[in-house]
């Protein structure tokens, strides 16, 4: 028997936790926001109070000077007004990312935010947790999206680097999460040379280091001479890949670290020469396996390719519905 769950309502600009008058990842300023992670389409400034993990609050502070943050450690339960208990659980997406477990009147709801199941040296792994309603993302919710093991992608990058000692490999990577993960994975795969950064990535990398993530020797492109960059990895935000900025680099080979690189034309649209399929989101198998593992009474699907995941749920006799939330973008994952 499925309970009513009238206390939790998907609205166009966020998920409303009615008794606590709180909103999860709202796209408009609200009195109290429960934020899953620091990406701009989930974490916005201007809320009265923001509940998030300490790392997410630090990230938001860097971007918006967030005031009145209420830190929630992983696993710690916070009692909100109206008798709603919230617990932040690791989501494995980026530093500080969390699923939010909501408990009210004996009913359990989990909002995953963005998540993945692959190992990531920059954040603790997703913790599967039983619940009645599982509200999942669906960014890569199509069966064509199967992210390959990261070791192969890092090997591709290092091979191209070794074959082109006079060039540099310019890796476009989302400024929060992907950039630091690529750097940490390169270190884990034996790349110990200095890695050069676009200026826009510096503060976030330092923040990761403050949270104990070792990124090895980082240098700024702006402080390097052109010839110093030959044979090295340069990391920049995706927007800078085809920007005037990249003209200062010595014969850059354009790479991009993103789950979208699985589709050739997506890579071509970005003028990418070396596509690296590295995603911080669950791929199709992770999405479907996680639903099966968590085994909720009902699955609600938020942003991404809802239709296909909804279809999978139907084919597998699982109750599901797609929510029409606005304001979430296909970020440059």
């Amino acid at each position, binding site marked *: 028997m499925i309970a009513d769950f009238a206390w939790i309502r998907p609205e166009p600009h966020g998920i409303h936790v009615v008794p606590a008058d709180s909103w999860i990842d709202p796209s408009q300023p609200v009195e109290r926001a429960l934020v899953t992670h620091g990406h701009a389409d989930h974490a916005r400034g201007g809320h009265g109070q923001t509940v998030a993990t300490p790392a997410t609050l630090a990230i938001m502070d860097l971007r918006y000077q967030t005031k009145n943050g209420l830190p929630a450690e992983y696993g710690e339960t916070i009692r909100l007004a109206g008798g709603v208990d919230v617990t932040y659980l690791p989501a494995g997406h980026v530093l500080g990312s969390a699923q939010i477990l909501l408990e009210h009147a004996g009913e359990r709801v989990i909002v995953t935010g963005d998540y993945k199941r692959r190992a990531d040296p920059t954040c603790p792994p997703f913790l599967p947790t039983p619940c009645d309603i599982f509200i999942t993302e669906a960014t890569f919710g*199509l*069966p*064509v999206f*199967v992210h390959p093991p990261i070791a192969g992608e890092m090997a591709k990058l290092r091979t191209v680097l070794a074959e082109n000692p006079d060039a540099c490999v310019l890796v476009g990577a989302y400024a929060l999460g992907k950039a630091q993960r690529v750097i940490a994975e390169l270190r884990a795969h034996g790349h110990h040379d200095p890695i050069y950064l676009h200026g826009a990535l510096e503060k976030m990398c330092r923040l990761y280091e403050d949270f104990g993530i070792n990124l090895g020797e980082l240098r700024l492109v702006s402080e390097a001479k052109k010839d110093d960059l030959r044979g090295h990895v340069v990391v920049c935000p995706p927007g800078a890949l085809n920007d005037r900025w990249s003209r200062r680099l010595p014969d850059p080979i354009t790479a991009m670290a993103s789950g979208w690189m*699985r*589709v*050739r*034309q*997506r*890579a*071509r*649209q970005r*003028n*990418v*020469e*070396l*596509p690296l399929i590295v995603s911080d989101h669950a791929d199709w198998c992770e999405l479907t396996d996680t639903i099966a593992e968590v085994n909720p009474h009902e699955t609600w699907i938020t942003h991404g*390719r809802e*239709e*296909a995941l909804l*279809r*999978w749920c139907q*084919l597998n006799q699982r109750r599901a519905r797609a929510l029409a939330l606005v304001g979430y973008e296909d970020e440059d994952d």
Partner: protein
Amino acid sequence: MQDFAALVDRLVYTRSRNGKLDRIADYLRSTADPDRGWALAALTGALSFAAVKSSTIRNLLMERVDPVLWNLSRDFVGDTAETASLLWPDPAYDVPPPPSLSEAVETLDRMTRASALSELPKLLDRLDPPGRYALLKLATGAMRIGISARLAKLAFAQAFDVRVEDVEEYWHGLAPPYEALFAWAADGAEPPDTGNMPLFRPFMLAHPLEDARVDLADYAAEWKWDGIRVQLVHAGGETRLYSRTGDDITGSFPEMAEALPFACVLDGELLVRGSHQGGEANERIQGGAASFNALQQRLGRKTVSKAMREQYPAFVRLYDALIVEDEDLRELPWEDRRRRLEALLPRLPQDRFDLSSTVEAADFEELTRIRASARDDAIEGLMLKRRDSPYVAGRRVGLWYKWKRDPLLVDCVLMYAQRGSGKRSSFYSDYTFGCWDGDPDQGAELLPVGKAYFGFTDEELKKIDHYVRQHTTNRFGPVRETDKSLVFEVAFDSVHESKRHKSGLAMRFPRIHRIRWDKPAEEADRIDALRALVRD
């Protein structure tokens, strides 16, 4: 097959032309016969396998993947072969090693429509996703990876350090896997003998004149006819008709093949008799040609009925002579070639050939006035040819210009948008637009009048795509219906009566000229305004 698949992927991701040349040349040097020949044929679109169609692939996948998930995936990826390569399930048995490219080609060649349903899966099972992608692209003959035949020939010339002109000449007479071509270029054997073959020679093309002016002392003017540019080749007792791209279209126009009685290579416009372009044949303007619409009835037919030949009689309006009997005229100035062409005309049947007449004008101003009047005569515009220009392949600056008449413009309302494919997959880039069938304030409706998918920049595409997503009222698979609030200024060359559209009109060469973000939809044009421009 994996080496070929790796080449295909490298080409997909290589931006620069020189980079592509290097990669193809490397492959050709490092690969043995016959694989390298098959690869060359595949890259240039010279291979086709009747047994495997896009629908074959779709049907095979529908048996293995949920149809709804297949359709959603195909719609997102924008390419059937790529979607299939990603969704193909890994085999649950021990598979033989991947096939070589030649084995794959031979297997595909043996397949029938029926056997493909069991044979193609066996090949796919032996390959990884990039291998499957390359195989399916190869099988359907649609590589579409930005490699023109010209580029492949340049790469071949670069790989073995031979002249590209020689490659082009020898190439056309040979069939894949081109072993004689490789033997000549790579191993120093005698060049293939092509003297007696009806070979295609690359066309000489024109640049748009735009705002430039020319001196008529240096340039001759001709009408620009709206048919298909063709090359007629008679050699070794055989006649072939080639289109701009070098496709052999002889089969659709047998009367032209019968009409050429001696060895030569001629350049002209393929037309159908009529009075649409320039009126009946006359002194002032050389008329006598039907509209492109009439010619279209004859295109792409494998067999042509007698009735068809009589209703739409084809002829060629000659522009140039490249080779006459054994003499190559291509190095001669245009004026000399023109005289040779005029002298040739009495030897040709008059019902099948005439000469594209020159347009006489005292100066550029008078020519401008003559061009302006071309609209009334339903002529596409003018060609300007440098009097001393040799006949050279491709588009050489300063030799030939096309000077089309100004386009017609009409304001239309965006009605439907469809996702593009290829580079524009995931963007709503194909637009259907309409005009009002009366006064919008009195409840008039929009009727579709055309469809266009170019004329805008990448930046504009992003904005329109965003607009479409924000203004969707209905979805039909890859198509979205909009709230009909955005006005496009559409440019087109002409408009014709047509039964295909509800509006009864069809545009020729429509393209988005400007996006009128500022204009209210009610102020777009009405069907009547468009109908007034019909010159049929």
